[in-house]
Each structure stands twice: as C-alpha cells, then as structure tokens.
C-alpha cells in the first residue's frame, strides 16, 4: 500500500475510534463543564451516576432486561437455528427471511407497532414485556450466530449418537449442546449486548419505572450534554469491549482444537 493509502486508513481509524475515546476521557474529567482535554481528572461523574437513583435504577433495569432477553433469545435462537439446519422444512428461505426481518425493518416502525400493541395490552412499563420486545431484535442475531456454530457439528456425530442409543433430545443434550457450548455463550453475550444497547423500542415501551440506561441517556440528551452521560456511555462502551474480548477469547479457545 502506498504511504498515502496508509495515512488515509490511519486517519479513518482515528475518526472511528476518536469519538469513543473522547467520551471515555471526558467521563473522567474533574471540570465542572465539558472541557476537552480535561484540566484535571476525577471520578465525580461516576459518583454522581451511582448516587443518582434515577441513573442507578436505570442500570438495574438495563441489567435485568438484558439478562431476561439474553436467556429468551439464546434459547429460542438456538432451537430455531437447529431446526433450520437439520429440519425438513417447507418454505425454508421465506421463513429465514422472515426471521431476519427485524434487522431490516426500520426500528422506529417496529417500535411504534410494539408500542401500539403494548398500550392496548396495558404492558407499558413491564420489564418482562420489555425483554420480550428486545428478543424480537436479539433473536435474529442469535439465529445467525447459532447457525454458523451448529454448522460446525458434523451430522455424522449426530448419527453416531443416534445409533448408539440417543433419541433426538439425547443427541441435542449429549452431543450438539456440549459441542456448541462456546458458541452459545458467545451468542448469549451478543444477545445481552443487543438488549443492553437497545434504544428505540425501549423509548416507547418503558414506563418511568422501567427506564433503561439508553433511554435515560436519550432523555438527558434532549435537555443538556451533562458529563454524567459520558460516564454512563463509558460504562456501555466497557460492556461492549468486554463482550468483544470474551468472544475473541472463546474463538481462540475453540479454533486450535480444529
């Protein structure tokens, strides 16, 4: 690559990473307002975040919702992924496109529809319901990951298990699940992340008491750019980094085996 090319790529990488780094740096600012670079460092915005009950309850809501969504979408995604891979299925491509549709339909349209339903069913503010609505967008992500992981399980192994005494459930429990376990953990992490980061549906479906972190950020942003948001954002970024690192670790652990 030419020097110009390298410079361009480096610049783009800087622009990609820069804004995120700025947020992280600002979150540790000791100044009273958003100054960059900060004249001194402190944890004051984190303290404010943790001491403000609106923020801390949003954190709890986010964690609870993401955990529930993670369990539901991982279970549903893997079962359906297995069905797609090994099943005798009419309309396979149509069904797959349908399953992936939530990734393509504009989130605002999905959100308004879900809002419409939630109002009619009186489910606004329910945390379990919020997790269910998040499952709609997390499910396709898990399905995609599940399929690629399950493809790694040789069907001959499943036949070996069947002829040696397993029924379908036994095959799943004794061969498919243990072999796919690392991939399942990976998919679960991304499902958690999808819910933890979800904004648009949450904006409509959360009530005052079930507000999640992204919704709190949205509400604050429409008022002012308070640096507490930087601390919260840094927390969200940290979760993303952790998920990516965990996934990398899982992939590394899995590949040398092959």
């Amino acid at each position, binding site marked *: 690559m030419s020097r110009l090319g390298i410079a361009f790529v480096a610049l783009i990488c800087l622009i990609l990473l820069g*804004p995120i780094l700025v947020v992280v740096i600002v979150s540790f600012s000791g100044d009273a307002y958003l100054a960059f670079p900060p004249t001194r460092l402190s944890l004051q915005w984190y303290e404010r975040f943790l001491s403000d009950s609106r923020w801390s309850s949003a954190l709890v809501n986010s964690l609870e919702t993401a955990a529930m969504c993670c369990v539901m979408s991982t279970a549903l995604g893997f079962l359906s992924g297995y069905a797609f891979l090994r099943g005798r*299925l009419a309309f396979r491509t149509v069904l797959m496109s349908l399953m992936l549709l939530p990734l393509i339909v504009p989130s*605002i349209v999905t959100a*308004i529809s879900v809002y419409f339903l939630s109002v009619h069913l009186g489910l606004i503010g329910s945390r379990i319901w919020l997790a269910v609505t998040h499952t709609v967008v997390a499910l396709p992500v898990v399905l995609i990951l599940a399929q690629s992981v399950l493809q790694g399980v040789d069907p001959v192994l499943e036949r070996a298990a069947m002829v040696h005494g397993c029924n379908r459930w036994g095959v799943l429990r004794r061969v498919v699940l243990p072999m796919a376990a690392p991939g399942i953990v990976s998919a679960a992490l991304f499902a958690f992340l999808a819910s933890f980061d979800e904004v648009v549906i949450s904006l409509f479906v959360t009530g005052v008491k079930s507000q999640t972190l992204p919704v709190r950020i949205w509400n604050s942003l429409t008022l002012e750019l308070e640096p507490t948001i930087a601390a919260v954002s840094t927390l*969200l970024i940290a979760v*993303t*980094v952790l998920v990516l690192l965990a996934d990398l670790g899982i992939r590394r652990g899995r590949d040398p085996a092959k």
Partner: protein
Amino acid sequence: MPLSARLTWLLLAPALAVLLLVFVLPLGWFLVSSLLELGTWPEITEQVAEVLGSRAMRQSLLATAEIGLATTLLVLLIGYPLAYGMLKAGRGGFRAIIACVLLPYFTSVIVRTYAWMVLLGRTGVINQILQELGITSLPLQLMYNRTAVVVGMTYVLLPYMVLTLFGAMRGVDPRLLQAAAGMGASGPRIFLRVFLPLTLHGVFAGVLLVFILAIGFFITPALMGAPEDMMAGMLIERQVELANNWPVAAIMSIILLVVTLSIYALYSRFADLRKAIVA
C-alpha cells in the same frame, strides 16, 4: 437423517410465536387499524391521497432520500479504501483496523451519537479547539443541521459497508491479480479492470444495505438534525408522540416499509444478510 417435519416445527414454534405475536401481528394491527381510523374505504383513499400530497410529507420524503443517498455515498467512499486497507494490511495492521471497525459497530447507537454531539456541540470539543487555536472567536453552529446528521450517520453505518466490502474483497483470488500483473498490466489498471469489477457485487450489496438502514434511521437525525429537516423516522415519531396522529404515522411507515422491503428483496438476490451482520 433430517428432523421430522413435526419436530422441526416444534423447535421453530417458540421463536416464530415471538416473532409473529410481538413483531408481525402488532405491525399489521398498527397499520390496518390506524388507516381504518380514517373512516370508510373512499374516505381512506381520499385522505391518504391528501396526506401524500401534503408539503410536510413530501419534504420529509425528500429529506430522507437526500440524507440516505448522501450518507450511502460517503460511507462507500470511505469504506472502500478502508476495506482495501484491511485486505492489504499485515496481520497486526488487520487486527488494529478490525478493532477500530468492530468497537463502534457494537457500541450502542445512542452512545455513538452522543460521542459526535460531544465533538460537534456549541461547547463541544471541536469548537473549543478552534477557539483555543484562535481560528474562530465565537462557537460555530456545527450541530442541528444536515451535515451533522450525515456525519453522524456515516459514522454509525460505516462498519456495515466495510464488513460487506471486505467479505467481497477477500473472495477475490489473488492469483488473478498476479496473472494480470504477469501480463504487464499496471497497478491502477489491475485495480480498475480486475479488482474493482470482481468486488462490484460487494459494492452493490453494501450500498443497498446501508441505504436501507439509513432511510430508516431515527436516533441520530432526531438528536443531531435540524427540527425542520425531518427524516421519515422522525416524522413517524412526532405524529405519534406529539400530534397523536396515527394514520399519518401509518402511511409514512407503509412507504418506508415498501421501499425497505423492495430494496431488501433486491439485496437478497445476490447477498446474504447473515454474512453482513456478523463479522
């Protein structure tokens, strides 16, 4: 030995149930019942025609198309060289670039938008730097205009393009390029005559995907855009939240859905969404 049809459907049932009950059903219900609010059939068609002809609607559609196109173009212009850089970089370089792409990709849209607001705000980082350097004396209005929206959206959508393009570029057999070089073709000629045509399907796929996602955007334009420069998503939200006017929201949603699904159908003919979403 494939699963029996009954077992297959049994495994699919929970996922399909969630999808149908929490996605397809409410979508249909919202669209149909909102339109039915308008009255009888002739009244509906009349009203729909009126909404479609309204200035707000036309402006919003135009803004959506313009911002969508501008963003897609910008994403392509930045994404192609970046993906090419990923392809040509060594192991370490590749890892560094992919990290720079994936971290924003998996970071919440609201955080990414906030990050740009920190940069572009009146008291934001860029204004502070400009003033400190003495380039400007008063803070510039960098936000709440269309440029800010396009910049923010480009930032959010770039990873989709890069990952799609990189997939296409990795599929190019390097021996073809060696063959071209062996036959005496110059570097730029090889790129234009061999490499670019071989990655063109990736360009189409990336462009369609990014455009679909761009026209449906809500968070970034709502936070960074000018209030009067309303994209489709914002119009839908305002009609529901402020005006409580469900029929207009439904009409706009239908337009957005029809465009999105048509482009997605085209996209599906030569690309697999499953490969674009997960690196």
